[in-house]
């Protein structure tokens, strides 16, 4: 027993020593000064100059001015912090922007969306030929946000798997997929081949979806918000004091689409969750989709108004068991339990009993194949392959059930949160967490970031990025210790940032680990992890 303890202690010491040696070389930092008068809003990484390295693309707005947004590009070939960015001042009608290779020019282009069209900005073209109209569309957000044009990163993706970037444009009640085709020697790409997908309306669509902000344009994506929406409300005074009358209210929405292989045919299919149903559009030969979904399945836990109040509710669609077919995972608060707890319901894909028919992922009775119970609220959860075995582990961030009491009493200036990682064993989550880690977060206007970045050290285990204090960012090394995973206390990399800095963890083309971009008041900090 004593020998085992000594070995464990030696291993721990060796781990600490390795972490110290890696500290200096693990994060390469580039500081980019913002042009005077600009404040950064969004960040993306993309290879615009086709040098194999990611360039930093930042969306910014002019302080104190409406409809004055810009996009700044810092090329990876530029050295030093004083490098001047390539700058595009956006016209006032630009609602959103992103980056994609949508033109035969070398490298990627900026893709700009107005209310009626998608355009490309070619950074290397001569001044008079920089703008190209790609196609017309009925963009979901019909009014630009006066504060800033937003980044629609999910608008560019290779839908049909031909290696060319296609565009997926949200429209009221659905999406338009514009497939890119390039003829040999043609001066421009062709986006004429388009598919329009319409989401069947539901009576419950309007529940709790009243306009909240006039003229707002925002994407609510991710695991919890599953709806993209655009809302406008005009109101006027009435004779009754304090009771404004609504003159005009417009709410347009489309569910956030998810592109995954539903049926294992190696083609990306489109999934969307409405309030009551999961809709599936299957992709056929040549990137063909039907306008109506090929299958609509009633959710075992509807995302109705009641569930909107459930802090733990979220849903995800991904391949959990490695059979290349999509599975569904739903987190929901356990309403029957006396104590606060959250259930993860996993619905694993099975072949349809009827040949040629679409399988119902939830079965006839909506009984999951796997059920995991977590104590407390799940603040957020995602699935990441943490050990390089090709299966996604569950990473859940929870807060203790007495959170509300803590906040009410204000006995402490911090609250406790916990991070759990559950190992994926053939699609089912282990009953006990592989990693359990507690951290404290200050109670003030601050959003912590705790997320696995991918393997930085080469030991196949992901490293954890932590910003649990407003002015501090850290990278913690994870290692296997017996059956469990642990985090080394000494950070692999550590830095400071402005307390108001915004954190972006972005995937760069060709890189396995995510990269860190910090948007500060007057500069942008870009950190590439790995050796």
């Amino acid at each position, binding site marked *: 027993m004593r020998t085992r303890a000594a070995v464990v202690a030696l291993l721990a010491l060796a781990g600490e020593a390795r972490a110290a040696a890696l500290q200096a070389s693990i994060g390469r930092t580039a500081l980019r000064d913002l042009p005077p008068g600009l404040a950064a809003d969004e960040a993306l990484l993309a290879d615009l*100059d*086709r*040098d*194999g*390295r990611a360039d930093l693309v930042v969306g910014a707005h002019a302080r104190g001015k409406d409809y004055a947004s810009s996009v700044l590009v810092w*090329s990876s*070939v*530029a*050295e*030093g912090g*004083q*490098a*001047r960015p*390539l700058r595009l*001042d956006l*016209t*006032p*009608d*630009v609602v959103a922007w992103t980056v994609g290779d949508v033109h035969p*020019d*070398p*490298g990627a282009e900026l893709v*700009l969306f*107005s209310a009626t*069209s998608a*355009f490309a900005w070619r*950074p*290397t073209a*001569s*001044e*008079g030929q*920089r*703008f*190209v*109209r790609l196609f017309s569309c009925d963009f979901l957000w019909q009014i630009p946000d006066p504060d800033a044009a937003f980044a629609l990163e999910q608008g560019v993706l290779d839908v049909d798997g031909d290696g060319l970037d296609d565009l997926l444009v949200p429209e009221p009640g659905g999406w338009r997929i514009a497939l890119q085709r390039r003829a040999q020697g043609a001066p421009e790409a062709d986006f004429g081949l388009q598919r329009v997908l319409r989401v069947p309306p539901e009576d419950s669509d309007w529940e709790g979806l009243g306009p909240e902000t006039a003229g707002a344009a925002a994407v609510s994506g991710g695991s919890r918000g599953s709806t993209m929406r655009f809302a406008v409300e005009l109101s006027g005074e009435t004779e009754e004091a304090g009771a404004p009358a609504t003159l005009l209210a417009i709410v347009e929405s489309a569910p956030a689409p998810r592109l995954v292989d539903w049926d294992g045919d190696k083609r990306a299919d489109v999934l969307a969750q409405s309030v009551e149903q999961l809709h599936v559009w299957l992709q056929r030969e040549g990137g063909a989709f039907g306008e109506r979904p090929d299958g609509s399945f009633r959710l075992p836990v509807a995302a109705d108004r009641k569930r909107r109040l459930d802090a733990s509710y979220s849903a995800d669609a991904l391949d959990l068991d490695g059979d290349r077919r999509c599975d569904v995972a739903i987190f929901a608060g356990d309403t029957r339990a006396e104590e606060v707890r959250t259930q993860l319901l996993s619905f694993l894909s099975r072949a349809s009993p009827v040949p040629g028919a679409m399988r119902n992922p939830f079965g006839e009775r909506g009984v999951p194949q796997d059920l995991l119970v977590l104590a407390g609220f799940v603040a957020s959860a995602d699935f990441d392959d943490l050990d390089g075995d090709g299966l996604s582990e569950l990473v859940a961030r929870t807060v203790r059930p007495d959170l509300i009491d803590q906040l009410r009493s204000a006995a402490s200036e911090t609250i406790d949160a916990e991070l759990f990682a559950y190992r994926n064993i053939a699609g089912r989550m282990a009953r006990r967490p592989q990693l359990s880690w507690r951290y404290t977060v200050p109670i003030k206007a601050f959003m912590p970031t705790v997320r696995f970045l991918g393997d930085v050290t*080469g030991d196949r285990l992901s490293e954890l990025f932590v910003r649990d204090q407003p002015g501090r960012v850290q990278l913690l090394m994870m290692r296997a210790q017996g059956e469990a995973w642990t985090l080394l206390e000494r950070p692999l990399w550590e830095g400071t940032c402005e307390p108001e800095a915004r954190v972006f963890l972005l995937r760069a083309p*060709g*890189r*396995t680990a995510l990269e860190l971009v910090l948007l500060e008041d007057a500069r942008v900090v870009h950190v590439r992890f790995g050796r």
Partner: protein
Amino acid sequence: MVPRQLPPRLPRPLAPLPALSLLCLLAACASTELASEPPPLAAMEEPLALRSEPDDEARRLELEPGGFTGVYVKDARSSLDAMLGEPQGVLVERLVENSPGVAAGLEEGDLLFEVEAPAPEGGRRTLELAWPSQWRELELACRAGDELLLRYDRAGAERTAHLRVQARLVRAAREPGERLREEQRTGVVLRSATEVEARAAGLGPGGGAVVVGLSLDSPWRAAGVRFEDLVRSVDGRELAHSAALVDAIRGAPEDGELELGIVRAGEGIELTVPLSRRARELKSVHIPLVFRYERGRESSETSLLFGLLGLRRTSAAWQVRLLWVITFGGGDADRLIEVEG
């Protein structure tokens, strides 16, 4: 009943072989991480004297500062659809208080579309305004006291204004330069030209790129490009920004060439320069347990027969390992030897 034939049992000494084979197979299947980006060029030459910009601030302050109008303009096109067409006029974005622009009656939002100004060769010229850079060039060409006749549009009504240019007292701030590195097809390091260098080469501030690094095997070196050459044009197009040269290099066809307009010691020359690509080489061979060879940038490692024999070499040292535990090592000593004169 036919007696069932049992498979022959392996002789005892060979029993671990399947496990060993499996181990070898697993080792062979274990993927090593591939580099996601090319390594830095080994033979890059960057003279220390060219690491920083030339200290020409005093000369910059002696340059003709041009005139001052107090008018800042921007692209007049206000929508993406308009961006598809040619611009017509430039928009007044900002006016400096008490400036000639204010005195002429201009207001923010006015659309300047034509200006009549003194010509450098004498007389007057009429210039149609389309790009903001035209206004900056006009200011640089003007002298104190020059009078400009402006035609502009305000709320749909065409107007004219007379603007008397004043002397520019406060010069524009020095723009920080930047270094760009192109290591894929040319092996060259570029620095943006200073305002002094750019204007001497007939370019506007911010234009031009100076060669401050060249790889020993760069095709540009063989084609006659030298350190401190200022590239002022590529394929006949003036270089408005040093990044445009990198874009032109990356965007050229596989076996393409570029026509460079170069200023060397004040003289203009034209050079046709070829492009190259990265060489490929074998970096490692692994035959599980039998042979292993890896070559890095500064070292190589060879291992034979289960690691029975191992050899590691760098440019300064070597090490031989026999029977796993016996090692010999050697390399450069910390002293010089006497050599015959």
